[in-house]
């Protein structure tokens, strides 16, 4: 062995015992610190606050379970939870279906070299970068029941009866869901578009040779191949929708009555309108628990091995 290399090697081996004397968790310390400071600490603090009588106006706080009891026995809570469930489930299903349709359309268009596919993708994506508040404002103008309301204006032009989109409690939830799905579809579309693009095209050719018509190819090839993407997408949409309150705030403010008040908006109102920091903390812990349970449920269906 040439001398310099031998020396270098012996120097390396000499440093090894030194390196291994550093405990392994030391290497994880930086990332644990960052996660701890910015993710874990706020959660623990919210958990702590839930067991106090803290208010937003300050003053001395003492530990009690009374705030928790008060929030959980609030007669509005069942309505709010059911609003949340409807809003979230409909958004997940709606965004998934619409996102998949647009993604299929774009992939198909690209395969046939149709012009304008990039433009279509960009337009759909544009909805996604609109902030939630602006989304609520845009849709409140579209749904407006004043003479200038865009959708009702079109209905009038077509001599169809107008709809009380926001003022009728029975329609308000549907309107909120439409607004949310419109904004979230872009995200689903991008996720599913990427997944569709990564499906081996020869699978479709093999299935065609095997005599499977188009709908069977979709059912037996596309859907199973998209399973993982659809599940991950569902987790992301669920969590995102559970946390959505800005769009609803701008669109309906949770009304009429409590018709569109979801858990995140309820927590927001509790803290910032009733100054009940302890109650709001309890509600956000509840929100976190719901998200965790749902995510765990989705994970159960995740394909175990790479398919």
């Amino acid at each position, binding site marked *: 062995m040439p001398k310099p290399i031998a020396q270098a090697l012996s120097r390396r081996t000499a440093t090894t015992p030194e390196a291994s004397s550093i405990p392994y968790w030391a290497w994880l310390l930086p990332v644990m610190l960052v996660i701890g400071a910015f993710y874990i600490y706020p959660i623990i603090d919210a958990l702590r606050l839930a067991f106090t009588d803290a208010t937003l106006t300050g003053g001395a706080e003492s530990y009690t379970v009374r705030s928790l009891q008060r929030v959980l026995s609030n007669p509005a809570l069942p309505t709010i939870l059911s609003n949340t469930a409807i809003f979230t489930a409909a958004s997940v299903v709606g965004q998934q279906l619409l996102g998949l349709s647009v993604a299929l359309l774009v992939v198909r268009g690209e395969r046939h070299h149709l012009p304008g596919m990039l433009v279509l993708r960009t337009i759909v994506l544009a909805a996604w970068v609109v902030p939630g508040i602006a989304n609520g404002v845009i849709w409140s103008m579209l749904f407006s029941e004043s003479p200038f309301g865009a959708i009702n204006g079109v209905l009038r032009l077509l001599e169809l009866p107008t709809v009380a989109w926001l003022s009728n409690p029975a329609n308000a939830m549907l309107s909120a869901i439409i607004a949310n799905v419109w904004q979230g579809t872009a995200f689903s579309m991008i996720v599913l578009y990427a997944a569709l693009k990564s499906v081996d095209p020869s*699978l479709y050719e*093999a299935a065609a*040779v095997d005599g499977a018509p188009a709908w069977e190819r979709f059912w037996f090839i596309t859907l199973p191949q998209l399973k993982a993407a659809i599940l991950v997408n569902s987790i992301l949409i669920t969590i995102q929708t559970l946390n959505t309150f800005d769009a609803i705030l701008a669109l309906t403010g949770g009304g009429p009555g409590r018709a569109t008040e979801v858990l995140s908006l309820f927590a927001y109102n509790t803290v910032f309108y009733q100054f009940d920091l302890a109650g709001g903390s309890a509600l956000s812990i509840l929100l976190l628990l719901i998200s965790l349970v749902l995510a765990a449920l989705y994970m159960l269906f995740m394909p175990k091995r790479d398919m």
Partner: protein
Amino acid sequence: MAPVSLVSLGKAFGSIEAVRDIDLEIADNEFVVLVGPSGCGKSTTLRMIAGLETISRGELRIGETVVNHLSPGERDIAMVFQNYALYPHMNVAQNIAFGLRHRNLSRAEIKAAVLDAARLLDIEALLDRRPKALSGGQRQRVAMGRAIVRRPKVFLFDEPLSNLDAKLRAQMRIEIKRLHQRVPTTTIFVTHDQVEAMTMADRVVVMNNGVIEQVGTPLDVYNKPATRFVAEFIGSPSMNFFDGTLEAQGEDLVFRIGNGRALPVPRARGSAYSKHFGKRLTLGLRPEALSVSDASDFTIEVETKVVEPLGVETIVYFDLAGHPASVRAAPNRAPRAGETVPLSFDMTFMHLIDPEDGSVIPY
């Protein structure tokens, strides 16, 4: 189990003509290999037969039926893809059974058919596995099982062996041949590997630049190539080519390489070649038509460049009159690189090529 006819078949992608004027009659149960360099249009031709590419021109018949406008599923063909295209989310049994879904078979009948195919290919033990858990050779077998279970009219293979290592490739070559003997079915096999073409085909179809150069049995295309392309493409190491002129020497014809030695043309070729007398032509001689010896009257001394011992024989490379060339030698009598050795020419194996159009002058 049906003949296949390709009549003036052509395919254009936009303004690019990938394949044109393909005329080919494939007999019932024949094993035909389409061979040619990458990009010559083999896959395009095969995919037109499968119905995976639309046919731009011409007519395609399977059996008595014109199938130009039938979907792949309606043509009763089966195809093995280069990457096997196994359904990743289905196990081997489901993969094989997929093509039987529209056959109105009972569960038991499907199971029996799958088992039958699996037994034929020796993959019974793998029926519960997902494709991910299979080796390349096993995937290859499953892909063949998926094709064979349907007992289609025609088998199509698109370079199915090119993802396997050399040893497995040689083994699968034999297995596909054996399978064809046991389940006789019209088979169209695409490869860029001339060894695969020679060893597997009943008939070889040599393609180049989107057209057929020659159709014939493996020995036909080897011994009587129709064009310089075929002469060069088939056989390894490749045929040697020497530019020169056809001249008269007394009663006989000779071929003069460059301005150097004149090699006697066999008398039997005289009448066939007499029209080309005096022309600039290319002499084609396979490496086995040369030998490292001074046994004959017309030997040429050359300096060897590279020597490749292959065990059964040794390939010796040299330059002659500016042309790179090679000769097969017996391993125990092979020269070393850099040696000067005498070469004998067996002109009974000669081909004369017209350099204008690349055609081999028939004899």
